[in-house]
């Protein structure tokens, strides 16, 4: 829809600035409706799949006979299928949808050629489907988040390169003016992911690269993905949504600048913490641990910046779904980063390496931070695209409590289970506990309650996500409330800031 922005229905002179702005926004949203809703719908479909598969994985950890008769349902295949669906099926498309919408809004560009993102979205989803089927059939690589075979990763790369190039074009055609913080993060994500994905896949798939170098590159990739896509898009969305809803500028531009660059520089050096004590020269993991400790700088600055922006408007957490979800995400990011940093220090790492602790910190960043932030973004964006408001505040409230407590419980149990696992692995002989020797089976018996609790958390998550998908479907079918007022948890009384 190549509408130039400056063609209002009436001569501009007769309109107020606010009216022109309103028309601008409607034109942008009109042009963004199809691609963004397409990305969101497919992402949510994959999220449901990931949730069901995650639940089955969790059941299998304490009940190995559960659905145990088929090769494609063994834990070794379901677990990579789950993490890949969560990351490539849900996470990236949800992040792309959010990033392109906010980019269009901030750059004041009406999207030209809407078919490009839709085509690439179709390619992307075919790629994920091919990849997941291949993993379930056993055609996979043994590296975390690079399990997809070549056929699938090529599709994913082409699709994302299209989106990324198109996002950068949007950025270059922006209305003159200040470049807002969120745009730094999004432009970074548009550039970084295709580079990262292509170089990792090429090097891991290359017959000229040998032995542990593969593992190093896979670790570099998995860590880079967390920071260069997930943290970038999530933080970009938080920097946009919170000031927008509470109607205040970000506390400090300079803090944001420091937080952005220090995070991106140091994060890129942290990949080798995965191999502390592993078969590598020791300087790799020492460097990564040092970089992680330096990450306390961006954690502090970003945290202070967002919390100071919120300082006088904390009550908005009680009113606005978008703010409540994004604040959960912000806090989860801070906690997740601190846990990742602490967990990498050698003394802690010895107790937590190769345990569920790392699954816990992964989920803190992907699930508690990124997923909750994306829910917040969807609660803000979707009504603007479909032209009606969310059906029911109670649905949103239930979704928040179900997913919030579900994710929180799951991660807490993973972290406790991981700490226990690590401690028993490292203290094989515990005569005082009445067990002569802690082998794999004895260690497992100790963490069994936490594994069972994780399955409970998954049931909460299935309920919450299902509810959200139904709510989203209602919006897709335009069954929402027609009023122009956003759906809030509680009405905002006189004297309070309107969201």
């Amino acid at each position, binding site marked *: 829809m190549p509408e130039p922005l400056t063609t209002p229905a009436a001569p501009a002179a007769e309109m107020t600035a606010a009216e022109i702005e309103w028309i601008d926004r409607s034109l942008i949203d009109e042009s963004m409706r199809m691609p963004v809703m397409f990305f969101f719908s497919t992402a949510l479909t994959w999220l449901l799949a990931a949730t069901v598969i995650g639940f089955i994985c969790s059941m299998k950890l304490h009940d190995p006979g559960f659905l145990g008769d088929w090769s494609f349902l063994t*834990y070794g295949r379901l677990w990579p299928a789950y993490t890949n669906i969560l990351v490539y099926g849900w996470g990236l498309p949800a992040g792309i949808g959010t990033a392109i919408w906010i980019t269009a809004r901030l750059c004041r560009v009406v999207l030209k050629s809407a078919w490009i993102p839709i085509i690439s979205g179709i390619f992307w989803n075919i790629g994920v489907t091919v990849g997941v089927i291949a993993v379930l059939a*056993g055609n996979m690589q043994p590296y975390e988040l690079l399990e997809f075979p070549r056929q699938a990763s090529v599709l994913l790369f082409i699709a994302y390169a299209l989106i990324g190039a198109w996002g950068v074009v949007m950025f270059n055609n922006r209305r003159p003016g200040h470049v807002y913080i969120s745009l730094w993060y999004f432009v970074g994500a548009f550039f970084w992911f295709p580079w990262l994905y292509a170089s990792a896949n090429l090097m891991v798939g290359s017959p000229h690269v040998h*032995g542990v170098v593969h593992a190093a590159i896979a670790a570099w990739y998995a860590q880079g993905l967390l920071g260069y896509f997930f943290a970038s898009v999530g933080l970009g969305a938080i920097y946009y949504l919170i000031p927008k809803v509470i109607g205040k500028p970000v506390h400090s531009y300079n803090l944001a600048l420091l937080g952005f660059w220090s995070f991106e520089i140091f994060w890129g050096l942290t990949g080798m913490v995965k191999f502390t004590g592993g078969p590598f020269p020791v300087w790799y993991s020492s460097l990564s641990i040092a970089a992680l400790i330096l990450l306390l700088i961006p954690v502090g600055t970003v945290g202070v910046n967002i919390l100071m922006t919120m300082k006088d408007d904390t009550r908005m957490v009680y009113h606005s779904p978008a703010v409540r979800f994004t604040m959960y995400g912000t806090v989860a990011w801070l906690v997740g980063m601190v846990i990742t940093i602490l967990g990498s220090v050698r003394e802690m790492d010895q107790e937590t390496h190769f345990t569920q602790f790392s699954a816990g910190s992964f989920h803190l960043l992907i699930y508690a931070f990124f997923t909750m932030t994306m829910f917040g973004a969807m609660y803000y964006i979707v009504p603007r695209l479909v032209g009606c408001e969310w059906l029911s505040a109670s649905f949103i409230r239930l979704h928040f409590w179900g997913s919030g407590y579900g994710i929180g419980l799951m991660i807490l149990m993973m972290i406790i289970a991981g700490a226990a696992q690590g401690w028993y692995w490292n203290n094989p002989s515990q005569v005082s506990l009445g067990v002569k020797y802690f082998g794999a089976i004895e260690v497992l018996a100790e963490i069994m309650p936490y594994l069972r609790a994780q399955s409970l958390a998954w049931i909460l998550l299935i309920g919450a996500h299902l509810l959200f998908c139904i709510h989203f479907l209602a919006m897709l079918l335009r069954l929402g409330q027609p009023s122009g007022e956003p759906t809030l948890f509680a009405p905002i009384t006189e004297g309070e800031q309107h969201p």
Partner: protein
Amino acid sequence: MKAPPPIFNGILAVFALSFMVLAMAPALQLDGLQPKVDEDLGDIYPIDVSGVQAEGRAVYVSQGCVACHTEQVRDASEGSDLGRGWGARRTVARDYIYEMPVLLGYMRFGPDLANIGTRKDADNADKYSVAWHYMHLYNPQATSPGTNMPSYKFLFEKRKIAGQMDEDALKLPAGEVPEGYQIVPSAQARQLVAYLTGLDHSHPLPEAGPNIQPPKPGVSGGAAK
């Protein structure tokens, strides 16, 4: 105000730094490692596995064994891997030069397998034998009660006994197999067990420090489990 070029340049620089340090440096430093050759003894380590063991590695990959098992032994200062008898020394980069793909792993629900081919259990001489591995894959609860390892029954075939029983047929309790039938490992199971029983990263290497003696059996209720 036009696009501040620092954004694009900065984004490029950030990525280049990360790529150089954590992707190119290991490729340059570790990719050219050569095996250790002792010309007096005619001894070369590591050597490339071939045939059935290489096929077994592919089975290991395709069954997703890395989701629960690692193949890396850490130094005594980094954990109790050596104390558990998972190896005689830590593993180093040179151990893996021929491993394609390399199966270092990331998670330990089960024990490390870097040296599973050399492991012994003082209380149970049969443990870690070929027959034990078949039974362990077919029904993990039979060999390791309480484990959460899934059963890999689909890697085994039910076959009619024609004449003599297959030498690798599982010794199952009466009633589990119909009269006149036997359960035999499929080609994939045979490859996988050949790979597992061949796993050995304990040949001395100078950069890995001296090999230690495995812990005395009996003190800790038997060797590694």
